[in-house]
């Protein structure tokens, strides 16, 4: 999942569609994010490459909409509803996820196990 500056990033991604849940007055997704281009990437416990400034899922609340939709801890979010998440600040990422007029967010996430799964399934054939 490491990137080379200037080169397009390619990753095996999974589409995850999360339906926001009403919690009193607020719409929540049920997970927390960390990272961003304005954050210190070396403090990210989930990234393989410690210079990766992408947005990572740092917590998934149990039974929440994100977990139900298939989001897992440590996933790296590549896109949210088409908006790129690989080169955004932390606040920009949070805003894209928490738009009030949207009650569904479609994410593209990647994780290490995806690539391995794909590779294994390819090897079987």
């Amino acid at each position: 999942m490491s990137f080379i500056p200037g080169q397009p990033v390619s990753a095996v991604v999974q589409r995850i569609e999360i339906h926001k849940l009403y919690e009193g007055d607020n719409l929540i997704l049920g997970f927390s994010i960390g990272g961003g281009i304005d954050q210190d990437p070396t403090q990210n416990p989930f990234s393989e490459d410690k210079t990766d400034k992408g947005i990572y899922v740092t917590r998934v609340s149990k039974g929440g909409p994100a977990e139900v939709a298939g989001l897992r801890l440590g996933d790296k979010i590549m896109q949210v509803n088409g908006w790129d998440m690989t080169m955004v600040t932390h606040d920009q990422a949070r805003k894209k996820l928490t738009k009030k007029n949207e009650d569904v967010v479609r994410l593209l996430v990647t994780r290490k196990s995806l690539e391995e799964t794909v590779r294994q399934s390819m090897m079987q054939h």
Partner: protein
Amino acid sequence: MEIRRGKFRQSVFMETPQDSDIQKKIDYEIRMREGACKLLAACSQRDQALEASKSLLTCNARIMAYMSELQRMKEAQVMQRVARRSSDAGPMDDRSPCKGKVAISDLRIPLMWKDTDYFKNKGELHRCAVFCLLQLGGEIFDTDMVMVDRTLTDICFDNTIVFNEAGPGFELRVELYSCCSEEDYSAGSTPRKLASKLSSSLGRSAGKKMRAALEPGACSATSNGGGATILLPVPSVQGPKYHLLAHTTLSLSHVQDSFRTHDLTITGNEECSYWLPLYGGVCCRLAAQPHCMTQQMMSGCLRVKLGGEPQGWTNVYGVLKGTNLFCYHQKEDMEAKVEPVLTIGINKETRIRAAEKDPHSKAQNICITNQYGGEEVTHTLAADSREDTQRWMEAFWQQFFDMSQWRQCCDDLMKIELPSPRKPAIVTPKQGSLYHEMVIDKSDDIGTVTDILARRIEEFELRAQLGSPPHWMALFDEDPPHTPQHLPPHSPSPRLHSRQPRSPRCQRTPGLLSSNASLTSDSDSPASVSPCFRQAWSPVASSSSGRFRPRTLSLDAKLSTLRGRGYNGFRCNCQPPTASSVSPRPTQTALSCSSSTSSSSSSEGSNSQESDLGFSRPSGARRSLRILRAKLDPRNWLQSQV
């Protein structure tokens, strides 16, 4: 600002492979530039901004170079087509010299401070960020950025820059860019309160400097591009701008195997903000390795007359490299690095001629004459066929031509040290003090400090490589046996306050357990998960070689913030239930709260904090300021709940 590829492609009628190469390079640089612009717009720290600005300048310079190269290639193509059409082919047997590697290293630029400034060290410390941009042909490299103030006598750049394809007529342009870095008081020496007071007001001289910096073109400086003709729309970004301070051009005559000083042409004057008192020279080591010295220019089978026998021809495998013609018994010897049977010097004094036909062979002989200490020694060689002889003669002529072009570089092979591949930036621990070793988050209280220390003890004990325990372990002399065992899942320290609203704290997995165990448990994980992460993670990381120290607020700042707020107040969670009840949901750190607080006016966030945070916290305004500052402090790794 969008650069469309189409604008470039319009001018391309026929694309050759070299064109597409350059096009790819241009696209790459444009992407880099966009990234740098984004980073520049987003970063808050001066260092980051300077680095981003430097990479922006380099990208711009590269784009300009590639585009001018593209232009030149187009023109050459057109000229060629025109030439062909008018059937006016120029002489095709112009010899062109071989290319070579040129390396510049150990750049050092002496400075000339006024002696009063340097010795007395009074007044503000005027600091500048400087770096060098080196251009040869189409290749542009930049050195690392160096911060310069009056405590330095020289600007030193440690990088070694190697240009791979340089002709003997190369021109290496060295440009020194500098950018004034305003004095930032919060350099760590002043306490935070004072720092915040100072940073909010501008002193008289600082104000003057700001005004000068804001004035456009005050010092005839070029902005981002650094070049006269800017073909692309330059993105206007705020942020530090570098200005050209000095430049010089080096060429073949400056190449030497040792250090030399060259003159610098200084642009800019004392009035400019980016001014540095340069002595006027630059000292560096410029070395060149032409390919004729490093590569085999010609190799093949030959026959050599050895010894005194007139008829004795020996078959050898000859390799022409550098200033010698090595003759091996067979080709495999050369690969096995066995000593050659015969080494014939080929240098400026060598004379080579094709001799008359030897009656016994069909091809001409080649006679190589050298002067060895006053004596003339002639070697006679013969190739197998006329074409081979011709090729060898051609190779010798090319070698002589190259030597005449590269002059002093062909006397002896100059050493070029290749820079080792750069690893991604590793954060080195700033200091070895205990404060920096501790990973604390805002949610923790003092009791957890002892937890952390206890864990550290355990870590040290587990890591057998540490001989003697660190000195602070004396604190725990009475305790050590007990604390480790109590770790999961209850708060081990008996000193923990009973008014702790949340009972099971973050699962403190001892040392080397996998980090997942503590992370995925969601029941009542208090505060933020980050202490869990870091604590579970850093012990794991410590057992491996590369260790990243998470940086954290100093203990002082932490304790003062803790004391400033009551426990009730600490729950700036998104969930709106009544303030007094303990929310069953995982609570969030102050940091995430602040993220919505600061952007509350424009936030589309689903969490509106204002009303909730109202009465539940004692010193609301001060707290939000602290939260804001904590949020802006890049040492924290923010997490937000969505």
